[in-house]
């Protein structure tokens, strides 16, 4: 990747993080989980997926399924920055005149499937991968799950079935931000050694720093990782990435900041000192 391209992706990701922060008030959103996968989504939609405004319903397009649906601010922020979605539409967050809320809705063009109930989209994406293969199409089918989401047995069921059917056009991406809703994953249901688990199920695994565009490019450009196995990319990330005042904290999952905090967090994102946050520290939705 050229340095110029990398800087451009970083700029886009910064804008996406601004959208996420701006959505974290007036009812709030899942800020921490959105910030962790912003770089991943920016990379995929900017540089990797064959998805653009002109092909959103074409059967030839690539598919990205956001299974950890509560990070939808990162998706909509990416859509807004890349011209897939009108930026003004973000102002409709939590308004009844639109479908922009805490989880994805297919009324927003580009959203492949609604999510919110964890552990569903691995199997839905697998169905799409089955069909692409039946039709001998080379679409890439990507499903992004959270790491906490890996508690759900249905994820592993889908992995087992995808391996059995040798669906090498299907890629599971894990946003490994180390936290589930309220606690660190390793303190509740330990996942490590995670790569070994997927390998043991029959996948080919690559583990990368999910905030490094060079590593993102290298990993995704290498897909499919195998001729007869599904691919898994474990993206090691930081919950709340970009805002040191909330980074890697168990109590910053869902955030509903006040207006002063939002102003300060936007500055913090651009390098100013940490924000003194006084709004409610833990709201579990």
């Amino acid at each position, binding site marked *: 990747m050229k340095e110029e391209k990398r800087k451009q992706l970083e700029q886009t990701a910064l804008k996406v993080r601004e959208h996420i922060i701006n959505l974290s008030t007036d009812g709030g959103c899942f800020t921490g989980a959105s910030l962790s996968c912003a770089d991943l989504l920016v990379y995929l939609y900017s540089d990797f997926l064959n998805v653009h405004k002109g092909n959103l319903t074409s059967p030839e397009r690539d598919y990205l399924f956001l299974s950890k649906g509560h990070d939808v601010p990162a998706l909509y922020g990416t859509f807004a920055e890349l011209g897939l979605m009108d930026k003004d539409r973000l102002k409709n967050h939590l308004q009844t005149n639109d479908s922009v809320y805490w989880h994805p809705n297919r009324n927003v063009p580009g959203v492949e499937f609604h999510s919110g109930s964890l552990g569903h989209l691995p199997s839905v994406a697998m169905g799409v991968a089955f069909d692409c293969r039946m039709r001998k199409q080379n679409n890439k089918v990507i499903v992004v799950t959270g790491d906490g989401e890996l508690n759900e047995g*249905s994820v592993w069921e889908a992995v087992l079935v995808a391996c059995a059917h040798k669906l090498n056009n299907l890629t599971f991406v894990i946003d490994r931000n180390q936290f589930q809703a309220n606690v660190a994953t390793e303190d509740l249901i330990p996942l490590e050694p995670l790569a070994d688990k997927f390998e043991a199920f029959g996948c080919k695994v690559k583990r990368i720093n999910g905030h490094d565009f060079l590593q993102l490019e290298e990993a995704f450009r290498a897909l499919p990782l195998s001729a007869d196995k599904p691919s898994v990319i474990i993206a090691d990330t930081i919950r709340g990435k970009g805002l040191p005042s909330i980074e890697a904290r168990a109590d910053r999952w869902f955030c509903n900041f006040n207006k002063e905090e939002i102003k300060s967090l936007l500055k913090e994102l651009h390098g100013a000192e940490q924000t003194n946050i006084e709004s409610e520290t833990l709201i579990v939705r």
Partner: protein
Amino acid sequence: MSYEELLRDTALADERFVVMTAENRALVRNMPATLKERFIDTGITEQTMIGAAAGLALRGRIPVVHALASFLTMRAFEFIRTDLGIPNLPVKLSSWIPGFLSDGNGPTHQAIEDISIMRGIPGMQVFAPADEQDLLGALPKIWSSPNPAYVRINIRKTDFKHNPVFEIGKAEVVATGTDVTLLVYGMLFEETLKTKTILEKEGLSVGLVNMRSLKPLDEKAILDAAKNSRLLVTIEDHFLTGGLYTMVAETFLRHHTTAHVLPIALHEKWFKPALLQEVLKFEGFTGEKIAHNIITELEKKTLTKA
């Protein structure tokens, strides 16, 4: 023609059809060789099969999925509700051994709340054919409907000749009667044919309605029966709650009317596992026992037309 032959011919004529199973191959044994890639066995994974069916439907396919009724409707319920119900995807659920048809399996396999929970999903259509002929007559329209659909598979063979014209939302009115009308769905239709004969020998005028389309429901058939008969009887291999008896009650409320209704269903209990005929005897669902209960009901009350 069998279920499998109809499915095979349908799938061979229309490449949108994909046949799936959660390793329940009773109905589709020959499909792997015939349909090749369009046959997908996901193993014993009801929820994953439903999720994958949703993905296939997103790509324009019509998946016909097969699993045991209790695991399909209950283990995979949230996937059906969330991945098929919310987007209203045309996935067709073929439910094996529903109701009493699980005979000796025991309560784990007894889908006797399936109608209740499936009809609660917006857009989901629900069908319970009386026998194989009734099933095969209904499936082409069910499979070509744009909705998700739940079908209680019933491949029992009977000598009864059904009205071959199946319409979604229409019951089959076999007979009208002024004393009693039997409202029934699924395999108990066979028993109610016997009930009807017994009651007629007693000099009663007996109506019989095959409620094969449970959602959309044929409300007119219910209201007409209530108007014409002194007593309505709902007969179902289902919990009393949420099935046909409930649907009849809801229909009456919606239309500001009522009637005398005798429910024959499972009251707050699972049924005793045994071979089917023994189950029917033990639980009191034979044609003879149903007739006996109806005569007792008619004697117990002075029933006038509602």
